[in-house]
């Protein structure tokens, strides 16, 4: 029963993150959702990823959001949606409904016994290829931010020739 409470809490946090008008509050709701997701994953027997999600999802990302909101300021007054609300609802209900129906109609596999592998060795050794690529992704992300936020004039030398 208490699992359902966590689950519902998680979804409510997400809904609030979407519904809230103030961006800062919205980011905080997101952090809340993140924390509950982490808790849920802990319950699923995945403590390592839960810790990481807590620190990155609820910590780092929130900081980044606050930082960005600081730069940009709060958004303006709420305006009418660009997409009619009924269309949005229809699309979501249809697509998620279909997904859920297709997902559950065949029945989910029964819980299997744990394979007993250790996260550390799976992550660092078995999936080393993914890990190496994460480095590339981080590198690319860093360059992306640097490239985007770089101040200064474009075409510094071209005007001279």
């Amino acid at each position, binding site marked *: 029963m208490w699992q359902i409470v966590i689950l519902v809490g998680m979804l409510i946090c997400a809904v609030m993150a979407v519904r809230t008008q103030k961006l800062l509050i919205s980011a905080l709701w997101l952090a809340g959702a993140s924390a509950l997701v982490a808790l*849920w994953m802990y319950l699923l027997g995945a403590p390592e990823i839960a810790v990481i999600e807590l620190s990155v999802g609820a910590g780092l990302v929130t900081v980044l*959001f606050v930082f960005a909101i600081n730069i*940009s300021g709060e*958004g303006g007054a709420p305006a009418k949606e660009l997409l009619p609300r009924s269309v949005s609802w229809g*699309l979501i209900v249809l697509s998620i409904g279909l997904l859920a129906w297709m997902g559950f109609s065949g029945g989910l*596999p029964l819980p299997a016994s744990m394979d007993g592998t250790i996260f550390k060795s799976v992550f660092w050794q078995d*999936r080393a290829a993914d890990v190496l690529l*994460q480095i590339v992704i981080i590198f690319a992300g860093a360059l992306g931010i640097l490239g985007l936020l770089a101040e200064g004039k474009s075409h510094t030398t071209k005007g001279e020739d």
Partner: protein
Amino acid sequence: MSLSMTTLSIIGVLGLIGIGLYALLAAQHMIKVIIALQILAKGAILAFVAAGQANGHVSLGQSMALTIVVADTIVAVVGLSLAVQARRYIGSMNIRSLSNLKR
């Protein structure tokens, strides 16, 4: 309640995805859009962990989930910097002012 943890997790995943996608349809501010992407990412992470838990390969599931955390954080960061840049050079983070390229 006879719902298993796996079933509950999948419900949670679908819920997060639905909320995230709805946010993408309704959001008018770039920050909100990035938040929506983050909600979607949480759904994906949860899906992998739940899948790993269900089939017994929980470490494998965690490992893949971790990769997703990294990738999606980077996406969020790049997205935020794009948004900040848009604020600087377009003057707004609103989707309305980001819809000049069309037709």
